């Protein structure tokens, strides 16, 4: 009898130890994941550092050499892009690259998630609807453009000389403010660095370099700042770093 009771006690103890081990094993894994994912807090709003040309245009381009593509290790989303916006900012078209890693608690509308290097994107927001297109993964320094050359309200998006997306009709929105944008969705530990070298505007006579470049009113990043090297070459760098 004693031997049977001891054996039963031994079996029950082993089950309890196994349950405890299961707890510890899964808990350990979760704690590791939580440490990795929660060292960065994804913001409920975005931070942007933006520059603007003094004159509007029917197209915005960075070309020769172009926009630098940074393959940073990010948890939340980030973007480097060119814009054309109307003055009330209710309508815009945007082209550039973005990252939005899988399995975080942040998502860009329409674009979906990424894994690995930054990806090409086009985005259109009319205030009454939005649309987007995704492209290939990117690296290095590439040219990007967005334009409505004949001002028919339909915008064409280009990358490295190839047109990859045509927008739905945006009606009378056929020109606007020209901007660059370095954007992040994470806290100050996440990068927002960007570089645009070779900024051009499009008017009725064709492409010409940006002029009178200044930091736009939409810049609101507390940890990164604008660096205007020249009218057609701007960068976004971390605070504490000088131009």
């Amino acid at each position: 009898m004693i031997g049977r009771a001891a054996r039963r006690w031994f079996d029950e103890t082993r089950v309890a130890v196994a349950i405890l081990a299961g707890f510890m094993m899964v808990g350990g894994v979760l704690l590791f994941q939580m440490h990795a994912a929660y060292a960065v807090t994804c913001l409920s709003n975005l931070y942007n550092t933006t520059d603007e040309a003094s004159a509007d245009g029917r197209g915005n381009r960075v070309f020769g050499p172009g926009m630098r593509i940074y393959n940073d290790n990010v948890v939340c989303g980030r973007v480097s892009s060119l814009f054309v916006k109307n003055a009330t900012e209710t309508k815009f078209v945007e082209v550039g690259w973005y990252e939005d890693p899988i399995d975080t608690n942040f998502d860009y509308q329409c674009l979906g998630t990424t894994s690995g290097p930054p990806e090409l994107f086009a985005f259109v927001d009319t205030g009454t609807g939005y649309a987007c297109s995704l492209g290939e993964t990117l690296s290095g320094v590439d040219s990007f453009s967005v334009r409505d050359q004949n001002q028919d309200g339909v915008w064409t998006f280009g990358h490295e000389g190839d047109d990859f997306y045509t927008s739905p009709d945006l009606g009378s929105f056929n020109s606007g403010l020209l901007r660059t944008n370095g954007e992040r969705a994470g806290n100050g530990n996440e990068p927002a660095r960007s570089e645009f070298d070779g900024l051009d505007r499009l008017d009725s006579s064709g492409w010409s370099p940006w002029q009178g470049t200044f930091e736009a009113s939409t810049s609101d990043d507390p940890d990164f700042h604008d660096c205007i090297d020249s009218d057609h070459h701007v960068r976004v760098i971390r605070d504490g770093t000088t131009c």
Partner: protein
Amino acid sequence: MIARMRSPQVGRIGALVAAAAIGGLIATMVLAPRGSVDGISQVPGIPGDVESPILRALDPSEPLMPSGKQVELSQAEENVGYAIYLPSPQAVNGETPEVWYSSATNEVAARFGSELFIEYAPWGKDQGPAKEYAQQAESWHVGQLTEIGGNPAWLIPAHAGGDGVPPVAVVHVSMGGLDITLYGGQSVEDLAQVAATLSTGAQKSAAPGGSA
């Protein structure tokens, strides 16, 4: 027969594995981070704490044009080179408009408190208003085509494009070579009634009973 029998040792190992799995499952349910379920969804390029540029434009404490400035109506008309259409005072409860002008884009917009703002944009030289509204309604799958005072119009109820898109009712109407867009917190039918009262200062003066 032999194959169907489990030895006591195998049974104990199975019980241990099952116990560990149950323990792990319970631990997962208790410890899994809630944040991975509740996601944040953002439109790229809309900065800072701007929930929606349209709602910001309806907030009188915010600039209607972040890179523009408030001007007199006559100054705005002189700058853009066309007459500005405004609703009748009765349609906006006598509210005096804020008129904003952007020298960078040569655009003008008007705001009536937190209830209404209006954008004005000249059509491109080859654009026909009725055709443009029809193409946009088809492209974006929202709204209703109609006429207001004999002018082509496109009416878009709030949330017609999905949750919060647009956040308020929108009425496009074409007058004097302009695409005039009204954004307002009322129903799209009421906003169309406001649009029906749009006129320029010159038209008001010429109307019976209008002041010179």
